[in-house]
């Protein structure tokens, strides 16, 4: 038999008051991500809020983990090149170059000057592409949508250039151990010059829209300030480190690819806040333009791959088709991989996001025994739990945007 119990709910208003009393002093846990537009990838943040102020922020990573380092152990050095595209996928060309340089360092192989110049061009174009995106998205994070449109237009032009050079817009896979996949096409350098002439006015435009804009300045100055000591302690590299006033740029301090022959400035910030990081990136684009001009003016003739490295770089197609030795060489390098001596080497390149390092251990042969990747975005994110607390909830987007990280490289 059903019974009916009467319960009293009392005075609702009074109970709500009590509940509010109870809630005071209690913080709220908020989960942001992993799929959130402002996180620039699958980053999850576990935040603790006191009202609108963040008291704790813990980045949770690993959503894009593919095991790249393990994959590398199971394929030849050249076969791994497409995987490096997918590290910092906003600057794949720079990753390709860094990887090839690391393996070449182990093999003590010098690539010809033309190849070096092509690689410098690749790195600097990749830097422009990555920074254009960084600035545009940062503007969008701070509420300035227009800038994003302008930078993306320019980036589109860059991708057309990449497409012509490498055959693909995004996944360039352009370098091989001992050289690059193909020489620069006819007339391409002229088109690069056109592009860099066109990008400078756009930078000025962005400058007009953002740099002296009260709203943007209010949202970025004094926000996310990283002190010099913290920047060093957390292992930040690249623009994030230099914005905090540390003068370290591998292109200047440990020159590779003949960077010592080019004149350029390394911009260094004074404060280390979001605004400084923005200024720094904008300036770096100008400096890259300046480097590219010098490369184009001085690009040497010659070969785009190390011709004497017969056990590392496959011979050109017409030789493979006409000469038996070249054919065998092609088969050997493809099946066994470029022959790299036993040993280990670490090489770091100044990538758009910071220092991208490859640590290669070889037991000889064409397959790495172990490959460790040091991604700058990983370090940039490690500072979040120190950097974000104390800021307002809305500042998270600005801080994340200013760090300009990419999850493909953080999670690998």
């Amino acid at each position, binding site marked *: 038999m059903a019974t009916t119990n009467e319960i009293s709910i009392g005075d609702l208003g009074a109970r709500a008051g009590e509940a509010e009393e109870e809630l005071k002093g209690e913080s709220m846990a908020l989960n942001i991500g992993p799929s959130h537009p402002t996180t620039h990838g699958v980053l999850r943040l576990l935040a603790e809020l006191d009202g609108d102020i963040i008291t704790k922020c813990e980045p949770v990573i690993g959503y894009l983990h593919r095991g790249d380092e393990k994959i590398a152990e199971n394929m030849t050095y050249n076969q791994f090149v497409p995987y490096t595209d997918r590290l910092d996928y906003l600057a794949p060309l720079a990753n390709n170059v860094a990887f090839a340089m690391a393996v070449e360092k182990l093999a003590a192989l010098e690539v010809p000057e033309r190849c070096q110049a092509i690689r410098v061009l690749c790195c600097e174009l990749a830097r422009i592409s990555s920074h254009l995106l960084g600035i545009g998205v940062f503007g969008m994070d701070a509420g300035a949508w227009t800038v994003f449109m302008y930078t993306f237009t320019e980036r589109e032009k860059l991708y057309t250039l990449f497409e012509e050079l490498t*055959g693909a817009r995004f*996944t360039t896979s352009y370098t091989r151990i001992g050289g690059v*996949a193909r020489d620069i096409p006819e007339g391409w350098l002229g088109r690069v010059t056109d592009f860099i002439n066109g990008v400078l006015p756009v930078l000025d*435009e962005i400058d007009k829209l953002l740099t002296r804009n*009260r709203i943007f300045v209010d949202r970025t100055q004094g926000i996310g300030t990283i002190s010099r000591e913290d920047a060093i302690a957390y292992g930040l590299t690249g623009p994030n480190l230099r914005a905090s006033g540390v003068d370290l740029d591998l292109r200047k301090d440990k020159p590779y690819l003949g960077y010592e022959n*080019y004149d350029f400035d390394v911009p260094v910030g004074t404060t280390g806040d979001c605004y*400084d990081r923005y200024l720094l990136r904008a300036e770096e684009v100008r400096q890259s333009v300046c480097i590219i001009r010098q490369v184009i003016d001085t690009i040497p003739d010659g070969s785009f791959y190390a011709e004497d490295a017969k056990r590392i770089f496959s011979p050109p*197609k017409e030789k493979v088709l006409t000469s038996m030795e070249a054919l065998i060489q092609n*088969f050997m390098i*493809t099946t066994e991989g470029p022959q790299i001596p036993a040993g280990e080497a670490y090489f770091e390149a100044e990538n758009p996001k910071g220092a991208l390092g490859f640590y290669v251990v070889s037991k000889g042969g064409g397959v790495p025994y172990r490959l460790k990747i040091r991604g700058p975005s990983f370090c940039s994110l490690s500072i979040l739990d120190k950097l974000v607390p104390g800021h307002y909830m809305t500042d998270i987007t600005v801080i994340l945007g200013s760090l300009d990280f990419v999850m493909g490289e953080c999670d690998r």
Partner: protein
Amino acid sequence: MATTKVIERKPLTFAEKTFLPQIATGLKTTFGNMLKKPITLQYPEERPVIPENYRGVPTLVKDPNGREKCVSCQLCEFVCPPKAIRITPGEIDAESEPDRAHVEKAPQEFEINMLRCIYCGFCEEVCPEEAIYLQDVFSLSGYSREEMINKKAKLYELGGTLPDKHYKWDKKKAAELGGNPEH
């Protein structure tokens, strides 16, 4: 030589703090851009220009005589980083092509799984016969997984015929240059 340059930060002037000049410059920039030619491409009505050497969908090609170029050496199958290619080698039919049978092989089956392919172009790069080419097809879709596996017939249909860039045999070259492609 690289030099260090410290970035200056000038404080906003009073006028800038009022935000008024910024509105003016902002609007000027926007209107300036409004008058420019639109850069949007009306895809799919308008098609982008595909450069030479573009890495599109991998295809198999035939030589100008309509012969299969692939000799099923399986080098592309070996090099393909995501293992998208699968080849079953076979013999060339002795009746239809007596001069090539027992000299070379041809693929009996050739499959490229387009769900795995990453368009890296390694297959084209290593092929010792210039038989596999990444051509200009860049958009590709299908309703099922099976449909996305390009079989041999489909690969040849996509690839068509390409003129020989390099000549494997002097005999062949001489014949073709001499105006007799059917050497």
